[in-house]
């Protein structure tokens, strides 16, 4: 525990050291960020050991905080799991960031370094916190430091407003969490999590606490309808920061949800699980459909994050549902799927966000309509991004498939729940999961195809440079994680087994080998990523040799088939809008579309389509208008004359006196 706290302090010290010579990129980027990556590895190692050496819970009371309200920290399997995630993924992002940040892009590198490492340290503290006070302090530090990171280029108005929206929703969520902890202590007024675990709440109050937690953590994780900040804030932030927010901060929210709903609250009724499941599924489908119609590569990834968070939350909901019916194995299976998908999403989404960063630096373009063909100019980034793309599309033998496979297995086992209504509903949930996963494949083909394949849509792309070696190492580290979890799924399941054991009191069946999973029973279902990979590699090798040996490998280069037209130009390629068109057509009611079509006699025809979120116009703008209207109404009291304010004070005193007497 002391090592862990030292490491967190080391992050803060590294951050402060950035201020010493804040404009020296050599100092900040080539010394402090790699050192931060080393610290992250240390944290991952501590998390790993907490997971592997079982059920030892370490606690400590820090000599910090208010006089009679010291900070409590605690390291158990769940925190260990998320620390491992934070450290392992954070290390990759830090190495990439070392090669990414430059002078002259908004905030000075030294200050950025401070914000960056504060952000990391605060996430570690959220995971370690064992009382509501430290939890909220760390949570708010996390929100604020990430706000400053998002608004690195704070002179651009869009980024300002994106940052404001993020801050607003973060605080609405934090308020809900504060209220949630206020309910959880159950009248004892003790803020430690131990007291909350022991508190007895009436079912109604427990429901209120759960609802508040779902709202608060959902706002941070991006559950519909609280998702609106994600597609604004992720594109606004520099790419390593987007990667940290999407890959790590959303996972911290998932951690909070797990901590409150499985650890602090227990024995919830089944409708909690049902509510979570339905919210998760809705979020997943919503995110996937919206991701398919985006034309900005980082917005596309942001919506895809919403989708993946939806799947994770749906798995958590399924686990809660099963746990409510005391089906431990099923609960463990769903929870393992949720945890594994949390890891997987952190790996591949960070990888892709970082890859967009490299693309952004090489081309200064974020719009999909102006990219293309980068696989030839940036082979390193393109190859590593391909791994992330395939993983995110949920294809075997990479990691995304493993968690989806586990989730589907969990859904398949649910009809044994002794409740007819749930039995009817849950298979439909499986259908939604499958549809979402298949849409993710569509989205990823669009993303990769438009950015890296085809011909460059702008002449400037011909000068694009591949990423530097630090960036390549960062990307390769994350891609390696994607491959390892995919090929050795049982090893990953072993890691999360300690968590499922502490939270739901059971773990999934061990598979026969580290590369072979059989979570329910060997005869029922098993999957081995390694064998699948070897099998495919074997067939490829055999076919390659056969074709070369029996025939030949002769080849010549020709221009592509042009259907008889005089010339093919890059502008004739399918665009991102075009690729999203079938989805717009099929899921029309999801969107709020504004079309501008050219008239037949237009000399400069212009086709424009704008797609908006219905929640924005249906929920947020009316809410904002109502707030404005309320403020106007209350401004009647603001007269600007001293005498009237004195009258208000007098009246208040009178009213209070009436109450007291």
């Amino acid at each position, binding site marked *: 525990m002391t090592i862990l706290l030292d490491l967190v302090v080391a992050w803060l010290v590294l951050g402060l050291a950035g201020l010493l010579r804040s404009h020296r990129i050599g100092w900040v980027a080539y010394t402090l960020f790699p050192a931060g990556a080393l610290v992250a590895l240390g944290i991952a190692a501590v998390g790993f050991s907490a997971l592997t050496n079982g059920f030892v819970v370490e606690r400590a009371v820090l000599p910090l905080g208010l006089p009679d309200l010291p900070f409590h920290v605690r390291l158990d399997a769940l925190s260990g799991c998320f620390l491992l995630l934070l450290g392992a993924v954070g290390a990759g992002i830090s190495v990439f960031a070392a090669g990414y940040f430059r002078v002259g892009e908004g905030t000075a590198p030294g200050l950025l370094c401070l914000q960056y490492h504060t952000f990391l340290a605060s996430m570690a503290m959220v995971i370690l916190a064992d009382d509501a006070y430290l939890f909220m302090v760390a949570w708010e530090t996390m929100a604020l430091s990430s706000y400053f990171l998002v608004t690195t280029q704070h002179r651009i108005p869009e980024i300002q407003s994106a940052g404001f929206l993020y801050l607003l929703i973060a605080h609405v969520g934090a308020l809900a969490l504060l209220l949630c902890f206020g309910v959880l202590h159950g009248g004892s007024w003790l803020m430690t999590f131990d007291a909350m675990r022991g508190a007895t709440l009436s079912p109604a109050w427990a429901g209120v606490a759960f609802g508040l937690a779902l709202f608060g953590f959902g706002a941070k994780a991006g559950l519909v309808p609280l998702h609106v900040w994600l597609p604004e804030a992720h594109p606004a932030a520099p790419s390593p920061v987007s990667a940290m927010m999407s890959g790590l901060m959303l996972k911290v929210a998932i951690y909070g949800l797990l901590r409150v709903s499985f650890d602090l609250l227990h024995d919830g009724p089944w409708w909690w699980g049902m509510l979570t499941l339905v919210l998760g599924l809705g979020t997943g489908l919503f995110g996937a459909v919206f991701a398919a119609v985006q034309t900005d590569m980082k917005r596309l990834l942001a919506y895809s994050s919403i989708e993946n968070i939806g799947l994770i939350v749906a798995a958590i909901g399924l686990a809660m549902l099963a746990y409510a019916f005391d089906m431990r194995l099923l609960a463990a299976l769903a929870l393992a799927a949720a945890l594994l998908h949390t890891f997987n999403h952190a790996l591949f989404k960070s990888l892709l966000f970082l890859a967009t960063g490299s693309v952004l630096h090489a081309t200064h373009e974020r719009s999909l309509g102006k990219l293309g063909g980068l696989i030839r100019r940036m082979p390193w980034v393109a190859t590593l991004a391909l791994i992330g793309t395939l993983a995110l599309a949920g294809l075997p033998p990479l990691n995304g498939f493993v968690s989806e496979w586990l989730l589907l297995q969990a859904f*398949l086992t649910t009809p044994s729940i002794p409740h007819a209504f749930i039995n009817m509903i849950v298979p439909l949930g499986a259908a939604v999961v*499958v549809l979402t996963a298949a849409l993710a494949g*569509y989205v990823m*083909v669009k993303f990769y195809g438009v950015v890296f394949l085809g011909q460059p849509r702008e002449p400037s792309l011909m000068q694009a440079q591949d990423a530097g070696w630090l960036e390549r190492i960062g990307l390769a580290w994350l891609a390696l994680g994607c491959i390892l979890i995919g090929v050795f799924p049982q090893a990953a399941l072993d890691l999360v087994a300690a968590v499922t054991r502490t939270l739901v009191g059971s773990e999934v069946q061990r598979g026969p080998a580290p590369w072979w999973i059989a979570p329910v029973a060997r005869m*029922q279902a098993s*999957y*081995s990523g390694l064998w*699948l990979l070897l099998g*495919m590699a074997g*067939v490829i090798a055999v076919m390659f040799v056969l074709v070369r040996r029996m025939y030949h490998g002769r080849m010549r280069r020709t221009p592509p088939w042009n259907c008889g037209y005089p010339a093919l130009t890059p502008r004739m390629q399918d665009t991102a809008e075009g690729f999203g068109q079938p989805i717009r057509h099929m899921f029309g009611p999801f969107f709020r579309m504004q079309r501008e079509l050219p008239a037949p006699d237009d000399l400069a025809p212009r086709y424009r389509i704008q797609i908006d979120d219905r929640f924005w116009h249906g929920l947020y703008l009316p809410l904002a208008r109502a707030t404005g209207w309320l403020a106007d109404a209350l401004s009647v009291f603001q007269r600007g004359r001293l005498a009237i304010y004195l009258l208000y004070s007098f009246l208040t005193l009178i009213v209070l006196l009436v109450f007291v007497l």
Partner: protein
Amino acid sequence: MNAFAFLGQLAGVVLVVALAPVLAGWVAQCRAWLQNRSAPPLLQPYRSVRKLFRKDAALATYASPLFRAAPYVVFAAMAMAAAIIPSVTTDLPMARVADAIALVGLFATARVFIALAAMDIGSVFGSMGARREMMIGFLAEPALLMVLFNVFLMFGSTALPTVVEGSLSMSGLVLHPSLAFAGVAFVMVLLAENARIPIDNPGTHLEVTMIHEAMVLEYSARHLALIEWASWLKLLNYACIGFALFVPWGIAPHKAGPLVLLLAVALLVIKLAVAGAVLAVIETVSAKLRIFRAPEFLSMAFLLAVLGLLVHLLLQS
């Protein structure tokens, strides 16, 4: 995993891979007869593959390594799928490596690779075909999984050999209403996924209506041969999945003797002949749908499969 079972597995895959062009030739032959044309020989696909292997590959100037790797990946995915599906026997060591959900994943891998390769050249038709193929794919994939779920729920396993053994051990001909729904849905998915007529036309030469052909427009010689072979293999794989789910009779159980295995091969050929003829009839009597009717077609398949699932759960409770 003993060596004998492994060898048997290998032999099964080689058999299926070798048989795939015959099925394609047979369907083409039946179609020609039904349409009053003179039919190409049964072994025509072999001849065209040999011709393609001999030719020099003409590769578009922009083509990246991904474009050249994709045919091999697609072929490998289909061959792996053939190793998982119990077409002749249920004694498949590979079926423990990947169950039917992984099978759907393998099909998805093949689809994503071929779509990416189509987008690689940056020609107009390639990316249009990729977009359409992915659209068909994301609609067909859930429908296929829902069909599989129907059967999984019945036999409590996602491993196809276990499913087959379960349904073989059921005494007598029991009609499951849910399987009827699932069967219809499966045929619809099969048509869509294999670029067959209501959705796509394998024999078309009109670029605007193409899906599969538009994607492989840039391929030539050995790459095209591999892709074509993989698509024939895909059709055969789908047919074998259908047999395993709905008409498993004749598939040799665990530890069967050589005679039973031979009988199983013979029965497989007969089943394939019947299925190929039925496919040709379906293709002949139906007209190609507009591309925007395809979602309706596939969502109908999806709904039928979900309906089957609900019927199963209703009857069970």
